[in-house]
């Protein structure tokens, strides 16, 4: 479902997340960019119910569109390498796939696409990637057992009072880039820009893409590290690459921002977790600049000056291990 309400502030919690959580509707994919636009996926049998709920909460100027018959296709690990994300997007383009949304997790890049295009999309992915577990698309498809019973068994045990989280990992010193591009450009210019960023060794810890109004544009939001290991500024490099591949567009850079990555268990299969997160941040008056929920993680971008407060509030909201220090590579 694509949702937008450009004239309404602070609606994400009360108008989108809360009603879905109250009805125990799980979001298997959820992206948001400040302040007005989301793409969310539910199980297909819940689509109409979710639409009705969101409509009942929506402002008159809001726009809601249900896309039935979609699937989520993810590739991992991307290792935060832009060229992996770029190759993923290019593969989808070659399969003539219409992308309804892109989202990243710490390990994966996910796309929402028509279920009817899954087969050609997977075939294209096998042209461009090697998958150690599967020699061919046929082998991949034959291994896709219905996960329903397995998930029910596991997820039914996670109806805890306080949502358990494996890790809450902060990542400071990021830039957040935002731009609106023509739908065709995400399949060409942006993918090429990602390839070039990859050649330069840049990393992308966060990325979401959502269709704009009328489906002719895409709203992109992604983050890069602010500084190179030696101390130089990455921003001018990124801007130069974006300008060279998307010359008519004006990328906006917000800096400094911070990412926070909350991970599992089974976030993608349990209802109410996004609502718990968004409500906690709203209570603390922390502005969510962008959000990506996919696979088993929630990735969010906030202003860096709000990072410490956000860590405290999230630590108090979720049952998380004590150790939540920043780790790993940027």
């Amino acid at each position: 479902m694509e949702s937008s309400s450009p004239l309404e502030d602070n609606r994400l919690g009360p108008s989108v997340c809360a009603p879905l959580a109250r009805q125990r509707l799980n979001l298997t994919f959820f992206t948001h960019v400040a302040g007005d636009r989301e793409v969310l996926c539910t199980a297909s049998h819940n689509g109409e119910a979710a639409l009705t709920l969101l409509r009942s909460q929506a402002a008159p100027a809001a726009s809601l569109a249900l896309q039935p018959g979609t699937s989520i296709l993810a590739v991992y690990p991307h290792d935060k390498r832009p060229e992996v994300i770029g190759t993923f997007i290019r593969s989808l383009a070659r399969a003539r796939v219409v992308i309804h949304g892109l989202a990243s997790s710490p390990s994966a890049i996910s796309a929402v696409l028509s279920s009817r295009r899954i087969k050609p999309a997977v075939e294209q992915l096998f042209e461009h990637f090697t998958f150690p577990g599967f020699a061919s698309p046929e082998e991949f498809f034959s291994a896709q057992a219905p996960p329903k019973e397995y998930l029910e068994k596991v997820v039914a045990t996670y109806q805890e009072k306080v949502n358990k989280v494996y890790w809450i990992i902060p990542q400071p010193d990021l830039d957040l880039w935002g731009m609106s591009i023509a739908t065709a450009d995400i399949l060409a210019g942006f993918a090429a820009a990602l390839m070039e960023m990859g050649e330069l060794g840049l990393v992308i810890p966060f990325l979401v893409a959502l269709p704009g109004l009328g489906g002719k544009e895409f709203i992109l939001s992604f983050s890069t590290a602010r500084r190179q290991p030696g101390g130089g500024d990455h921003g001018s490099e990124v801007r130069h690459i974006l300008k060279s591949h998307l010359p008519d567009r004006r990328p906006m850079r917000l800096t400094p921002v911070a990412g926070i990555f909350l991970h599992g268990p089974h976030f993608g299969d349990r209802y109410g977790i996004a609502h718990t997160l968004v409500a906690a941040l709203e209570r603390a008056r922390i502005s969510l600049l962008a959000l990506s929920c996919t696979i088993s993680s929630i990735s969010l971008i906030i202003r860096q000056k709000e990072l410490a407060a956000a860590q405290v509030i999230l630590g108090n909201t979720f049952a998380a291990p004590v150790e939540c220090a920043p780790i790993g590579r940027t």
Partner: protein
Amino acid sequence: MSAKYILIVDDDPDLVETVSMMLESKGFEVGKAYDGIEGEAAIKKRRPDVLILDVMMPRKNGYELCKELKSNKWTQEIPVILLTAVGEAVPTTSYSHADGMSVEAEDFIPKPVDAATLVEAVERLL
């Protein structure tokens, strides 16, 4: 001296990523696989110094893989840490601790795992 090679096998790619970041930050070289069959292939390709293995996975679960490794003279010496939500978090599962004991893994660590516990367990087995 080359870094010790740790293989992580779990069907949750975000968990694999996070655990691998934890271990890489401590100087280990890390391999990743996403189910039992991929894990088996990865072990054939390169023998890990320690194997971190999830229990509940599609295609081939952690107990099955561990049992196979321990019954093969070429792989039985690979130390295995079972990383599992079995027990407190998932009491109704059909994967029991008794099954785990029978597969002769060297260690069990319940999820969520903190970096210090995991690194300590890995170092103990090296």
